[in-house]
Structure formats: C-alpha cells, structure tokens
C-alpha cells in the first residue's frame, strides 16, 4: 500500500470518528440534558395543549369560583376574581414566565392531560379534549379573606388548618401580588426586596422562638426530666448568657409553669440535660430536616446537623440560634398535639372534578406519622391551655371556649423580633389550628399575634359549625 492510500485511510478514520462523536454527543444530550431543557419556558411545546384545552376552574370548599378561564378569539384568558388573595395558593399561569402555585402543581389535571402512556396515545389520535378538570380546594373563602385582612400591611404568614384531617382552611402570605396583572409588573415584582413571590407560609424559614418550646417539652416529657428548674432571670452557659424576657426571675418552677411564663432559663436547662441527639430525634419526628409532602412547594425546617456547642444547644432548646422552621411545619406540629400526637398530611386540594361534574379523584386525610404518644400530647395540651388561661397567650382567650396555644417572640439578625402564635380550639375537641407569624414586627407574640389568632379562631368556629 502506498503513501497516498495510507493517508486516505487516515482521513477516513478521522471522518468516522467525527460522525461517531456526533452519535455520542447526541446520546449524551438526550440522556443528561434533555429532561432539564424541555421544561424551559421558551419551549412552546409545553403550551400547545393549553391553547386547545380550556383550563379548569378552581373553587373553594363551598364552590366559590377562585380562578377560571374564558375563550377569546385568539386563545383564552385566565381570570383571578380575587386578585392578591390567592396569589400564593393558586399562583399564576403565564406563557412568558411559566406557572406557580397550584397552577403549576396541578397543571396536568387542570388541562386534563392523561398521564398514562396508552391514554396519551389514544388522546393524540382522537384529538385533545376541550375542557380541563376543575379543582375543589379545602380553602374557605371567607376565612381566607379574614386571614388576609389581619395580615394587611404586615409581613408574615397565617395558616388555618383542621388538626384532625389536615385540610387547610386558609393560607396567606404577605407581601403578595396580583396574578392577573403580574405579567405587566414582572420585573418590579421579581426584583422587589421583600420577595412577594415567595410563599412565606410554606417556604419562609423563621427562628421559632418560644413556640419551639412545645417540641422541647415533648422531649422533656418523653425522657422524664420534668422536675423543677431553678430560674434566676438568666443563665450563663460557658460564658454565654441567655436571658429571660425582661430578666424576670421565676424562681423554682416545674415544666407546666415554665411553659406558662415561657421561661427561657428552664427550657435551656432542659435542652442541656436532654442533649443534642434526643432533641434532634424529637425534632425529626416533627418533620424537621424532612420534606413535607404538600400541594405547594415547601422548604424543610432546619435542625442544625453539625455538632452544637453547649450555648448553641441551650439556644436551640428555646427556639433560637440556628434552628429554623416554616409556618406550615409549626401549624402541623401544633395540630399533632391537638390530634393525640398524630401528625396529619396537610392538603389544599379536596377533589378533582371533570368538566361535567364527575368526581375524578377524592383526596383523603392521611397520617404522616406520630410525633409522640397520647399521654404526652395530652400533657402538652394542658400546658398550652394554661398558657392561654393564665400565661403569655391571654389575648387569645375566647369566652366559653377553651383555647390551647403558645406564643413566641423570636430574635433574629434584624433588630425587630418575629411574633409567633400557634394554637387550637376548642381544646377538648379541636376543630381548627392556627399559626401566625409576623415578620420583624418588633412586638411580642402575646401582644400582636395572639389577638389575631383569637379573631380567626372565632371566625373559623362560627363558620365551620
């Protein structure tokens, strides 16, 4: 074989390698990149079905329409009659910027796109369906309105939930936005420092402050360390001083009394005695560091995973330091106490109906897990009743109805504290559980959050009778 032919073969080998590299790259692209790319908002394929299918209606538990679509000459328009009220529950659905809230998580249902491949093929042959499915929510429109009213002008979140089955009656987060006009204010809303797009109820991570004492108390009761504690208004842990509110001296107090006055010193001592491992285990039963299954995007509450120093452990036991919770997680925790220690899976969508009113799917209550035994939860409930009767939560007291609750005033990086309240009523047969967080309000939970909780619980009990 002469020189020329050898070179020709070399060129042929290079060509073969080039073509094979195309095959390899194409396969690599399909396996590793394709799935990430197809969901890009600029991929119009995602919107093709939506042009044909009239997006379903979203209604509250009593059938009040909260979102609907109407056909126009060139497609359809989505209407949100209550503007900002459902910005974080229903969200928005835009061709340009995508979707959020239930519009995103129930997109397939709202468009009636079948998920099983065989039905998908028949659908492709028979042509797309004309109308999407409707969603019936667990939300009560009146309670949602009330909750929004109470949060007006404040940053924070409120959730009302049925502690026994996990139905969410109301969920608001402020600041919010109007999904019907968000398109025109997109840049303004996305660049807003207060992040109105974030659903603080499920994704806001706050220092819990004293509402966390419910969890510390659970650990203390389970591990039988509920003896008396000495409180001199402050405690020095390895040179780090933890103070009580206004450095009140509580003297020798038991767990119930410590809970009533929300004594930081007593709970910090408890935390030190329990140790990090037990506290973390209890927290994880309460779903800390775990993904809460929910209809909307959630963030995990955080119990710090690294080794804590003693001062850090003391701070953690009173809900300060590196511990962070979401309001959703907190309302679930209080609900678990109301529900004999069984934590219910929270849910927003009650039912999926076809456009002609047939039930396609009914969502049933589900138990997520047990946070503690019945005896312990009963004990904590008693303490929480005591808090409302004679302690920091007095302002949530309702005449003729026993209320259980816990207040919190959480210090954070800013100068102004977050105000917390979690509680439920009626305490002997809980019908509604509520959580309130007022971000950086600079007031105590007992003075600012508790009265809101009282009003909302009254409204809920009247409404749900």
């Amino acid at each position, binding site marked *: 074989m002469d020189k*020329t*032919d050898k*070179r*020709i*073969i070399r*060129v*042929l080998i290079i*060509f*073969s390698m*080039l*073509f*094979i*590299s*195309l*095959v390899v*790259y*194409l*396969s690599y*692209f*399909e396996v590793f*990149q*394709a*799935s990430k*790319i*197809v969901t*890009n908002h*600029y*991929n*119009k*394929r995602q919107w*093709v079905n939506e042009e044909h299918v009239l997006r379903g209606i979203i209604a509250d538990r009593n059938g009040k329409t909260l979102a609907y679509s109407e056909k126009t000459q060139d497609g359809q328009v989505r209407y949100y009659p209550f503007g900002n009220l459902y910005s974080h529950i229903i969200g928005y659905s835009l061709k340009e910027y995508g979707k959020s809230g239930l519009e995103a998580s129930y997109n397939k249902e709202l468009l009636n796109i079948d998920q099983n491949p065989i039905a998908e093929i028949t659908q*492709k042959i028979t042509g797309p369906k004309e109308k999407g499915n409707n969603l019936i929510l667990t939300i009560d429109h009146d309670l949602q309105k009330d909750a929004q009213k109470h949060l007006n002008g404040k940053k924070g979140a409120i959730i009302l939930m049925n502690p026994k089955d996990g139905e969410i009656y109301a969920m608001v987060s402020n600041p919010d936005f109007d999904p019907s006009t968000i398109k025109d204010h997109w840049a303004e809303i996305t660049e807003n420092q207060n992040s109105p797009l974030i659903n603080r109820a499920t994704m806001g991570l706050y220092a819990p402050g004293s509402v966390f004492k419910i969890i510390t108390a659970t650990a203390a009761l389970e591990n039988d360390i509920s003896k008396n504690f000495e409180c001199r208004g402050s405690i020095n842990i390895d040179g780090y001083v933890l103070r009580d509110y206004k450095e009140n001296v509580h003297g020798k107090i038991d767990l119930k009394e410590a809970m009533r006055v929300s004594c930081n010193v007593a709970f910090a001592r408890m935390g030190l005695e329990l140790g990090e491992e037990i506290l973390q285990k209890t927290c994880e039963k309460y779903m800390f560091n775990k993904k809460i299954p929910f209809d909307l995007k959630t963030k995990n509450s955080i119990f710090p995973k690294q080794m804590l120093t003693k001062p850090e452990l003391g701070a953690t036991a009173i809900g300060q330091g590196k511990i962070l919770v979401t309001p959703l997680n907190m309302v679930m925790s209080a609900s678990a106490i109301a529900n004999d220690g069984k934590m219910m899976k929270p849910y927003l969508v009650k039912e999926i109906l076809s456009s002609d009113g047939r039930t396609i799917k009914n969502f049933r209550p589900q138990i997520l897990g047990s946070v503690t035994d019945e005896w312990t939860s009963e004990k904590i409930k008693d303490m929480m009743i005591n808090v409302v009767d004679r302690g920091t939560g007095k302002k949530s007291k309702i005449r003729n109805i026993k209320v259980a609750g816990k207040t919190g005033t959480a210090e954070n990086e800013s100068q102004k504290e977050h105000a917390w309240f979690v509680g439920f009523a009626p305490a002997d047969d809980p019908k509604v559980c509520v959580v309130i967080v007022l971000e950086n309000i600079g007031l105590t939970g007992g003075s600012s959050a508790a009265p809101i909780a009282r009003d909302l619980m009254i409204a809920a009990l009247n409404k749900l009778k």
Partner: protein
Amino acid sequence: MLRKLLSYKTPQNLILLIDIMALCLLYFYKESFDEFILISGIFLTFIIYISNFILLRTSSGDHYIFLIMTMLISIGIIMIYRINPFYGFRQITWFGVGITTFFLFYAVIKKIKKWEDWTKTYMILSFILFLSTLVFGVKIKGATNWIKVGNIGFQPAELIKIIFIFFLASYYSKKEKIMNTYGLIGIVYTYIGFLFIQRDLGTAMIFYFIFMTIFYIFENNRKLIYYNIIGAFFIALVSYFVVNHVQIRVVTWLDPWKYIDNKGYQITQSLFAIASGGFFGTGIGLGYPEFIPEVHNDFIFSAICEEMGIFGGIGVIMLFLILVYRGFKIALYQQNLFFKIVAIGMTTLLGLQAFIIIGGVIKMIPLTGVTLPFVSYGGSSLISSFAALGILQVASEEMDPSQEEDNG
C-alpha cells in the same frame, strides 16, 4: 426479472416500503383524503424505481452511494412534506431535477476526457463566479451569496465548490505544475477571503477543509501542512475578534440560553425539538418541529430527531458515515489520479457538510448555516450535491490509469 423487481430483499424495495409506510402515516395525520399525497407518493416511487433501474444498467461502478442518497432524500421528503405539504411536493420535483443533474453530470464527466488539463480554466471560472457574486449578489439571511436571474436565485458558491475540487485535482494530478505550492495556497486563501466577504462562513469552512484534506494526502512539502493549520487557527482567532458575525456564532454556541430571546433563539428551539423527541421520537406528525425557524432547510435534522427520535437521527448520521466510507473506498480503488482526487474531494464535500450542520444544530460545534446534503429542502445546494454524487459515480468506475503517461 419481475421476481427480482418485486423481491423485498432488493434495497430499493426496502426504501420503497419505508416511503409507503411514512406516506400512509402522513395520510392519517392529515385526516382528510389528500390526493396530493397520493400523486406525490406515486411520483416519488416512480423516480426511485426508474433511476435505480437505469443506474444498474448503465454504471459498472458503486451502486450503494446512489441507494444511500435515495434513502436520505426519502427521509427528507417525508419530513418536509410533514412540515409543509407544498414544500414537500416541490421537494419531489427538486428530486426529479436532482436525478436529472446526477445523470447529466455522470454522462458528461464520463464522455469528455482530459478534465485534468484545464487547471487554468477552473481557476478563472471560479474568479468570475466569485466576482459576479460580489457585484450582482443579493443579501439573503445575512449572507450575500445569491445571484438572481429573473425569478430564479442561485448560489454560485455551490457551483464553485465542484470547480474547486476539479481545480485541486487537476493541480495535483499533473506532474508539471502550473505554479508552485505557494501560488496554490494563495489562490485557495483568496477564495476563502471572497467567502468571508460574502459572510458565508459555512462554505468557507468547507472550502478550507476540502483543501486541507487533499493537501494533506498529496502535498509533498509536509511542513506546509502545519503552517496552514497554524495560519487557519490565526485567521479564526482574528476573525473572532474582528468579525461580529463570527463572535455571535461562538457566544451562542457556548451559552445559547443567555440569548434565548434573540440571537440564541434558533439554536435553543432546535435543542428543544431534539430534547422533546427522546430516543424514539414523537412519531411523524405528532411533534412541533415547525417551531424552529428555517426547519425545512438548515434545521431539518432537528425535525428528524423530534419526530423520528434520536435513533432516527443516528440512522441519518450512519447513512452519511457509510456514504463517506464508500466514497473513500472508491478513491482507494481508483487508479486514475485525477479521479482519485475528485472522489476524495466530493466525499469530503458531502461528508463535511453533513458533519458541520448536524454538529451545529445539536450544539456540538458552533452553528454555521449550511444545508444537510440530500435531506434539506431544495435549491442550489441540493443540485450541487447531486452533481457531486454523479461525479463520484463516474469516479467509482474503472478507468484507464495511463492517461497521465499518454499526455506526458
């Protein structure tokens, strides 16, 4: 005879089977009866059958390259028909014109001897065509590489490609060179310069690589090869900083997502199409390749990937690989030096063009607008691909190797 004609084992029958199945699918996709599909289908199968029949009778050379072309153009027609039935029908007409070109070039190239003697003619003809493009050129899609004669536009560069290969082949097949290697390099770079002025970067790349391939195989001064590579690298670097056009191609290759609503739009739409297809595709008529601008032209490969899947795309790549393999095999067996070089040139032309555009639309290399040979919709480039194949067909036949000696 008849039995052989109907046997499913003959390759053209397999191609026919695929065409019939695809056209049936298109028929169902369109739902209402479309007589256009029927006419197109009959017309298409007729051309495939007759041309394969004639070729088997007339050419003693390679029969596979023609079959590969038939398969490629079938895939192209199915895809174009699905995107736009009007274009699809026109593409069948283009196919007819292409086959005619194929046989025309085949006959003319075979009949006339002494192609290797006209080095100067090729050179002058190329210059005239380049200059006329500069003077009469019409700007279409950012490149000034079209000449309009009445209503019909054509790209002179497509014709120059073939003349260029003849030029190189005649230069290297003659013992007495009309100029030294430096003169040759000077002329090649002038051509590439012309293409740069026309902003036809894809064709410029093809010219350069055809030259480098032939240069690598036949040049005795080996050092010059390295100098050329360094020179090309230098030109590429300078043009990146000086020519805005080149810069855009590179930045949209590195990160098209950043420019998704402007200069990166085409390539990202192409990636969406390929990504949505998966391995087996959505099925013909069930995807949305029409979302990609210019899909029937440069981006036809993305449409194939969306509706026929990555496996369909790999099939097309493999067809080109076999075509290139057959082309180089022809070159290896050819004893006539001129046609040996021509075979290498034509194979490089077709193979490289396929690599550049497929690599471009899948974002493996920067995108340069060239068509996918035999698959993209019509025009000068399709005709020149047919011409190239016709010439390759001549080169695949046994020839008298002693022509050179006779002349000398």
